[in-house]
């Protein structure tokens, strides 16, 4: 080719040569692509598809609808000058994006589980659902106006989306658990989307009449900005919002001489001194005149529970002290101590199955469950109460028993990231109801092994929902203090 054909000293000259040398009309596909309509309709159809049907796999149920919300926002943004309905759709989409982004970011904060957090989440969810319907009404009416302006008799089908979503919300309200209607609805949804897609193709030439709105911010920049907001929000959540606030204070040393005497007596009876040193004077004095001490101690590496690659090991010590009195009474201590530090400190939880719950025929609660946490920081012993300690009702789902309503004692807390010898205990007192029953007290300790979980939940929530194990960010270890008190000496099961 003769390169001199394209000699052009400047851009204007080169442009002139290009314009004068246009070979042919553009290919049909290119001619069709040069329309404001096609891109917008593709964004809308994809946006609706991604927000309507969710895949419950690997977090896609959160991120695909977020992408869909974003695509709908971009589409309405382009169409906002077209007619009042589409302008309203743009505003509703902006509000919906804000609500969805708020939910996505709050999901990275444990704060969402507090009453205030739950209220904010409820408002954001309500706004998100309402604006979703509003968006569809605006789309329906807006497209209808475009259709009528183009002189087309056939409806757009967008109205059916409103009906579809209303049906979906109704099913959610009545907690429908069947399979048939949801399957039919998925089919109907795909049909509606296909109808919209077909319509967009049929209206391509009509769509040339659209007037996209100019913008100072490109679509790409808007997407980058919104992605940045999301990433920063999530980073803040994972960085600062994934732990339970605790009130750590220097521990007061034991000052009661009577308590010191009882400590010596208990130690002489076999009470482990490391555990004894952690108890308050009041708790020690409550054991004055103890008749017997039964001790069970076990090391619980996280790897013991089929969780390979997880570091950290707990020592669980169960101590039962028989108290003086006419009726048989036992004060039970469930103590834990981290012997090998874990790589990640997020949230922790202890679920207690007290003997009076497991064997109510034999034992009754005499004193409620109390306890505290301890650790060493800069040579100082620090202590904190549990962030939550008490009974909670929840619905447990088990492979064997299905769904059942349960009420258990839970302690919820976070341990410091920079500390040594992290430990704590729970204690309660039971009295005999009828003779001949074993003492059987269980602790289920749930430790958060990783920050990577979404939505972020606490160890307490993980335990209640059964979200512990191999594919979870939580590991569960169990121990029990079990012995037959009528034996003398009483020996913990497994140590006979």
């Amino acid at each position, binding site marked *: *080719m*003769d*390169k*001199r*054909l*394209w*000699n*052009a*000293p*400047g*851009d*204007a000259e*080169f*442009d*002139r*040569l*290009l*314009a*004068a*040398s*246009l*070979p*042919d*009309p*553009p*290919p*049909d*596909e*290119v*001619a*069709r*692509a*040069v*329309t*404001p309509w096609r*891109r917008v309709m593709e964004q809308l159809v994809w946006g609706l598809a991604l927000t309507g049907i969710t895949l419950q796999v690997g977090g896609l149920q959160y991120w695909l609808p977020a992408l869909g919300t974003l695509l709908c926002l*971009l589409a309405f*943004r*382009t169409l906002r000058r077209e007619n009042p309905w589409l302008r309203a759709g743009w505003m509703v989409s902006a509000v919906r994006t804000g609500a969805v982004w708020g939910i996505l970011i709050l999901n990275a904060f444990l704060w969402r589980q507090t009453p205030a957090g739950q209220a904010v989440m409820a408002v954001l969810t309500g706004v998100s659902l309402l604006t979703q319907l509003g968006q569809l009404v605006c789309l329906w009416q807006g497209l209808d106006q475009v259709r009528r302006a*183009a*002189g087309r008799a056939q409806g757009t089908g967008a109205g059916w989306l409103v009906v579809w979503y209303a049906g979906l919300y109704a099913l959610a309200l009545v907690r429908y658990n069947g399979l048939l209607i949801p399957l039919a609805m998925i089919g109907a949804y795909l049909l509606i989307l296909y109808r919209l897609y077909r319509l967009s193709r049929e209206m*391509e*030439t*009509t*769509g*040339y*009449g659209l007037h*996209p*709105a*100019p*913008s*100072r*911010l*490109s*679509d*790409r*920049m808007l997407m980058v900005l919104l992605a940045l907001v999301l990433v920063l929000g999530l980073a803040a959540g994972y960085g600062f919002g994934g732990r339970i606030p605790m009130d750590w204070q220097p521990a007061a040393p034991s000052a009661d001489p009577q308590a010191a005497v009882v400590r010596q007596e208990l130690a002489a009876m076999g009470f482990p001194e490391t555990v004894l040193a952690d108890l308050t004077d009041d708790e020690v004095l409550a054991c004055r005149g103890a008749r017997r001490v039964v001790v069970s101690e076990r090391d619980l590496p996280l790897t013991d529970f089929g969780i390979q690659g997880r570091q950290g090991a707990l020592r669980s010590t169960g101590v039962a002290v028989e108290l003086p009195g006419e009726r048989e009474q036992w004060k039970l201590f469930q103590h834990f101590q981290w012997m090998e530090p874990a790589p990640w400190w997020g949230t922790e939880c202890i679920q207690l199955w007290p003997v009076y719950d497991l064997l109510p025929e034999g034992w009754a609660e005499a004193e409620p469950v109390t306890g505290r946490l301890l650790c060493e920081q800069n040579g100082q012993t620090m202590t904190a109460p549990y962030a939550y300690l008490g009974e909670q009702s929840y619905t447990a789902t088990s492979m064997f028993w299905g769904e059942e309503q349960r009420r258990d004692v839970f302690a919820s807390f976070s341990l410091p990231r920079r500390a040594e010898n992290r430990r704590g205990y729970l204690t309660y007192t039971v009295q005999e109801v009828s003779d001949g029953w074993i003492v059987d007290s269980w602790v289920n300790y749930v430790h958060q092994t990783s920050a990577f979980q979404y939505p972020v939940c606490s160890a307490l929530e993980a335990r209640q929902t059964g979200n512990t194990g191999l594919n979870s960010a939580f590991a569960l270890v169990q121990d029990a203090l079990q012995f037959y008190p009528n034996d003398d000496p009483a020996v913990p099961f497994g140590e006979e």
Partner: protein
Amino acid sequence: MRQEELIALLREKDEQGMRALLAEYGPLMRYVAAPILPDGRDAEECVSEAAMRVWNGIERYDPARGGWVAWVTAVTRNTALNLARKAGRSGADALPEDAPAPGPSPEESVMQSERQAALRRAVAALPEAEQVLFYRKYYYRQSTAQIARETGLTERAVEGRLYRLRMRLRDSLGGERDG
């Protein structure tokens, strides 16, 4: 109405075909004419005239040589350029109002054919998005502002893309430039 039905009606010189053409392709024709004829009345005149050309020239439409939409836009664009030339004005951005001069010399005709062939190859080698940008700018003569609005970009970003497109075409077509 389906495209094939519309073409059949036009071939049969059925007036329903003309009405359908204006209803279904009127927005497209206005869209193509608007950048070249910014005055709304001129654009309307162009659409009417282009529709008449489609009506009269439907026998020349050959699906084997190109798509229907491309043909309708080509007829409309040429009509708009003719009207703009007649009126001595064009709304195109920094583009020549002169289409190939009437009655070129044999040597100019040969050079023009060679340029067209080279440009056809160069454009065909571009990615689809750049092909669309090329035709928006040089064929439909859309302004930077219009391209920006319709592609969701800022005008500055469009200018950047056009600059890179121009550089790419210069590289593939050759020729000398200043500097």
